[in-house]
């Protein structure tokens, strides 16, 4: 019965010093938002790797991704045991409107690319149109929506790696098999790119940036990778083959230090707000020392008093935390919109929400430990002498 009363007392105490409690809640909300946003940024960086197929390999030039491979390797790759399909792609790096309107563009083999990437959903009719249209392009639903593109629209891209203005006609719009699939890509014919390169820079023609190799069995990835690399070991361009996940993580590794720093900041923010909250609870407990002593004099146990302080701390932290979580969603959407297509997937996951809630609970509990312990051990006579 006393414990039910405790809840009422906790609720009443929470609303007692409204300014201080309100500011503390705002502080916690800001910390929880920061934690959620920073965690989402880090997760978004890894999103590509997380969505990688285990049965897919990437073969690139052993020297560097900056160096191409001959397109003729495709035939040899298809002959290697364990390989089910091969396609290729070139990074285009063109500019649409200006540099701020970034989205990834790939020149791909129109006949094989969408077989190797079944997660990009496109109607057979659109695919057929694309295959027969040399300047055709398949675009992700997100960028199509953002720029108001529709099938038949003419899209000019200004080349950076491949100079000049390149004009494309949208043949179709793909969607992801699930909401984790990147829907911001601009995909067009490698043949169109290669023909132009052949005319301008013949020495650089018939090259591809990388091959994408699908396996019959994902468990054979190590064996097939080794077989591919050994078969091109003494060729004009040696290869380096790795799983798609390892390839994606290679990009992440380039900014690994920044990601570690971001993660560290996320936890430091939580620690800072915990210190602020602990100070608030210490002040609160000190101000109410005589009340707590009175409760103990009346026969309430030290555990009751501890629960009263801990309950108030947890309630403040959770209210602030929930507030922060609720704000995280619209803020994440706004951030995603503001950063263009820097992050293909920018989603506050259920795990992030759970961790935000856990962080708020952690802050509430940890902040209460010292004042609750101190007050529970305080001698009643000393507490009654305290000045409010």
């Amino acid at each position: 019965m006393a414990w039910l009363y405790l809840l009422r007392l906790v609720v009443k105490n929470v609303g007692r010093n409204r300014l201080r409690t309100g500011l503390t809640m705002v502080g916690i909300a800001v910390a929880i938002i920061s934690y959620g946003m920073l965690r989402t940024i880090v997760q978004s960086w890894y999103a590509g790797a997380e969505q990688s197929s285990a049965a897919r390999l990437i073969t690139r030039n052993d020297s560097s991704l900056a160096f191409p491979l001959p397109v003729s390797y495709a035939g040899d790759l298809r002959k290697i045991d364990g390989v089910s399909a091969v396609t290729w792609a070139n990074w285009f790096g063109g500019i649409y409107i200006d540099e701020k309107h970034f989205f990834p563009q790939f020149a791909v083999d129109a006949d094989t690319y969408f077989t190797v990437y079944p997660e990009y959903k496109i109607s057979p009719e659109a695919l057929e149109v694309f295959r027969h249209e040399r300047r055709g392009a398949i675009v992700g639903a997100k960028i199509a929506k953002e720029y108001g593109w529709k099938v038949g629209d003419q899209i000019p891209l200004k080349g950076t790696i491949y100079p000049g203005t390149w004009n494309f006609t949208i043949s179709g719009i793909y969607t992801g098999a699930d909401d984790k699939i990147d829907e911001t890509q601009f995909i067009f014919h490698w043949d169109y790119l290669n023909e132009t390169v052949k005319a301008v820079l013949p020495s650089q023609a018939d090259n591809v940036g990388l091959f994408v190799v699908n396996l019959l069995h994902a468990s054979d990835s190590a064996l097939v990778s080794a077989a591919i690399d050994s078969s091109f070991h003494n060729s004009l361009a040696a290869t380096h083959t790795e799983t798609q996940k390892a390839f994606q993580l290679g990009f992440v590794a380039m900014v690994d230090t920044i990601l570690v720093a971001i993660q560290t900041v996320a936890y430091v923010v939580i620690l800072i707000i915990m210190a602020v909250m602990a100070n608030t609870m210490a002040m609160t407990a000190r101000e109410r020392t005589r009340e707590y002593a009175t409760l103990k004099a009346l026969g309430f146990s030290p555990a009751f008093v501890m629960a009263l302080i801990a309950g108030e701390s947890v309630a403040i932290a959770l209210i602030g935390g929930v507030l922060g979580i609720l704000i995280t969603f619209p803020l994440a959407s706004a951030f995603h919109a503001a950063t263009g297509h820097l992050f293909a997937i920018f989603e506050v996951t259920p795990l992030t929400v759970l961790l935000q809630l856990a962080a708020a609970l952690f802050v509430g509990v940890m902040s209460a430990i010292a004042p609750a312990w101190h007050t529970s051990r305080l001698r009643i006579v000393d507490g009654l002498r305290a000045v409010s």
Partner: protein
Amino acid sequence: MPALISISRLGKTYRRGNQPVPVLLDINLEIEAGDYVSLMGPSGSGKSTLLNLLAGIDKPTKGSLLIDGVDISALPETELAAWRAANVGFVFQFYNLMPVLTAFENVELPLLLTHLDRKQRREHVEHALALVALADRMDHYPNELSGGQQQRVAIARAIITDPKLIVADEPTGDLDRNSADDVLNLMDRLNRELGKTIVMVTHDPKCAARARRCVHLEKGELMLAAAT
């Protein structure tokens, strides 16, 4: 009348750093059930310490302290808390009401440690508040009541569990003369009509004169126990 409180060779020594500071020295005192005793003495004489020991919120360094046959100095903390809840009513100088609770809720507080249901608690609280003439103020918060009214709420809280002993530490120390008289009249009634045993610490001779007996303390020693 049988002795409700039996104090024998009671001593209390505090420590200030490594220095022992004796506050009560060999106190022997008996207080009968239904008695009304005032404790007087100069500051530092040990009267509040003696009251705290009687109330079970502090422990003696030596001697025995029997209340209704129970040696409370030997009780562990948990049992002592339960004993206080059942046997002692507190009246403090500054009322010590919970500011976030109404008068009703403040008076109800000690009953939460009993097995009474909500209906029974309501009946008890209404009765207690009627006794202190605050039935019409039960939904008021402490800051909506005068000092005298707050102290009457505190008295209602002190008697709500029908304790054997009421301890009052300067109950009129923060009140004007009229409010103080009201509080003292109320305590008179508790003693005479309800038979409550009251031990009250006071500096005020007029206040002390309202008790049946006045006990003087000087430098931790009992000087005189006189009928008033």
